[in-house]
């Protein structure tokens, strides 16, 4: 098990490295583009351009540039935004991290609970009228653009129904957990629900398929022949085996969301997380910040994947020896 974890961790490092190279290539080696002009932002003066060229080693070979970039980001941690002169990238990311984590962890708890309940219920009730109804809810969840849903939620809670049903909803924004846990949860409630709805739909649909096919497996027939109750067969056998692929998908999604895929939700609800940071940088074409957040994102994705693979091995005994 330890050996497995170690090996998995090494391969995660390798993927990290590949992603950083990929990002680097996208920004620095796309044909026909002057990276200096892009890093310096719009309408940069020649002096700034020269400074950028020097700082990022743009006159030197690609591998050197890559190493310089990584040094700025990881060792010196002095990668600097040229659009907002003087603001360092790494501290901004560190500051935004708790916001994103709060949003994603809360939403993940909701969507996993709701998704598993919905998916299992639909599978158990297949053949009845409840199954298509549950699945329709799932399809709606999958098909709504998240940011748009957030806007509609805002419209209802902040404007249309604010004077009646939703008078208790605070204005968009973020309150730190340490400062006031109640307000923290209250501010995050609708962002959580919005983000969770989408993923709950995806997971419910996926899980239903897995459970239905598991229920047709021979081992379920064996379990039935053993005289187990239908509930036990469903939960301890069919669902337990179906969770394995779900968990691996969860790792990907969770990592991606922490890494910034939640940016639409953050933007819409005015949460100053990593996604919002990326978004703002995008508006100003502030390339150093974008590079920083993307690499940070990759780090989280890869880390989450590695953790999930280890968890996966705990869930599926067959994977331990693979």
């Amino acid at each position, binding site marked *: 098990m330890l050996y497995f974890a170690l090996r998995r961790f090494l391969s995660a490092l390798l993927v990290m490295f590949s992603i950083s190279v990929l990002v680097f290539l996208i920004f620095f080696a796309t044909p026909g583009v002057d990276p200096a002009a892009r890093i310096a932002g719009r309408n940069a003066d020649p002096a700034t351009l020269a400074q950028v060229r020097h700082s990022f080693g743009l006159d030197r070979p690609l591998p050197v540039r890559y190493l310089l970039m990584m040094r700025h980001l990881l060792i010196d941690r002095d990668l600097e935004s040229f659009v907002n002169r003087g603001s360092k990238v790494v501290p901004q990311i560190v500051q935004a991290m708790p916001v994103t984590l709060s949003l994603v962890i809360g939403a993940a708890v909701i969507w996993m609970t709701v998704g598993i309940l919905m998916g299992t219920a639909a599978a158990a009730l297949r053949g009845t009228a409840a199954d298509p109804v549950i699945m329709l809810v799932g399809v709606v969840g999958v098909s709504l653009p998240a940011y748009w849903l957030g806007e509609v939620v805002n419209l209802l809670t902040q404007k249309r129904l604010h004077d009646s049903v939703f008078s208790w909803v605070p204005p968009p924004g973020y309150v730190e957990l340490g400062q006031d846990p109640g307000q923290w949860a209250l501010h995050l409630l609708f962002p959580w629900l919005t983000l969770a709805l989408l993923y709950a739909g995806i997971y419910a649909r996926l899980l239903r398929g897995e459970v239905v096919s598991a229920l047709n497996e021979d081992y379920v027939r*064996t379990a039935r022949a053993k005289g187990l109750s239908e509930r036990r067969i469903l939960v*301890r056998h069919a669902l337990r085996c179906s969770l394995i692929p779900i968990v691996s998908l969860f790792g990907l999604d969770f990592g991606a969301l922490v890494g910034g895929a939640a940016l639409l939700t953050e933007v819409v609800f005015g949460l100053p997380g990593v996604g919002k940071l990326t978004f703002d940088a995008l508006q100003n074409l502030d390339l150093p910040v974008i590079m920083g957040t993307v690499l940070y994102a990759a780090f989280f994705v890869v880390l989450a994947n590695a953790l999930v693979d280890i968890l996966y091995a705990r869930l599926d005994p067959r994977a331990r020896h693979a």
Partner: protein
Amino acid sequence: MPEPSQPLLDVRDLRISFRTRTGAVTAVDGLSFSVAPGEILGVVGESGSGKSVSMLAVLRLLTNPNVTVTGEVLFRGRDLLTLPDKEMRSVRGREISMVFQDPMTALTPVYTVGWQIAEQIRAHEKMSKKEALARAVGLLSDVGIPDAGSRVNAYPHEFSGGMRQRAVIAMALACGPALLIADEPTTALDVTIQAQILDLMRELNARGSAVVIITHDMGVVSEVADRVLVMYGGRAAEEGPRRAVFHGPRHPYTWGLLDSVPRVGGPRLSRLPTIAGVPVSPESVPEGCAFAPRCPARHDRCDERPFLSGESEHRDACWLPAGERESARAAAHSAPGALNRRAAP
């Protein structure tokens, strides 16, 4: 007619039909048979003959909503088909156990073998997990798994096919069932392992359990069965004590089955006889005798459906007059390939 005092399992007029896209299909049509306490019944037939489905129906394991099962399945006098779900559950695994064909997929992959055996025990008996696990170790060593004390914590994928089938059998034995139904328990296994599994069945039988063993292999039946039920097209073709069926088969289908088994010490054949035509599909079973289209001794009466009949325990469903059977079989046999030549319609 000497009836066994009280059959353990008495199936009467079992009918199983599936609703399919193209209409209802009758997979089993009016099947009746019984199993006496402590005996081994071999059920033989080609795939599609309805043998597995009937046994699944006995335990009510046909969960597909498109399936309709009618008739009576009397087990110790109670009709299992009308039993409430909860009582049915206490029959399954405790009074009647079932072993399935493919040991590779029969166990849940994410739990240890011991856990799964203990689960079965605890489903029927009040017992701590520890005690159940200890019993599982005993069962595993009973079925011949070496070093059962540590193998009890192994996962199914760490077992070979034969070991898994033993584990499945150990699980089936966990609560000392009065009846064990084994659905092609040896088909997926190597020949050497097959013999061991059959030995296990016999041993189990010696301890008092009745066994129904489903197979398409006449060899398996000849080795272990006390009585034989031959099925064709969802109906019983012939039924009787093993000795009688093997030495004096009466139904032309049974002739075919027996003749297609190669014999050590028999004449060297350039080609093994086969039964001509293709097995009847459940969707197109003829009105009359199901075997008639492939039968070498077919005659006019075969348009009418024959039922199991006969004076003794050895009964068959064929219209051929008793006196003509010997000569008809000899005729089919003496012209090598005669069975082959008759094409199916």
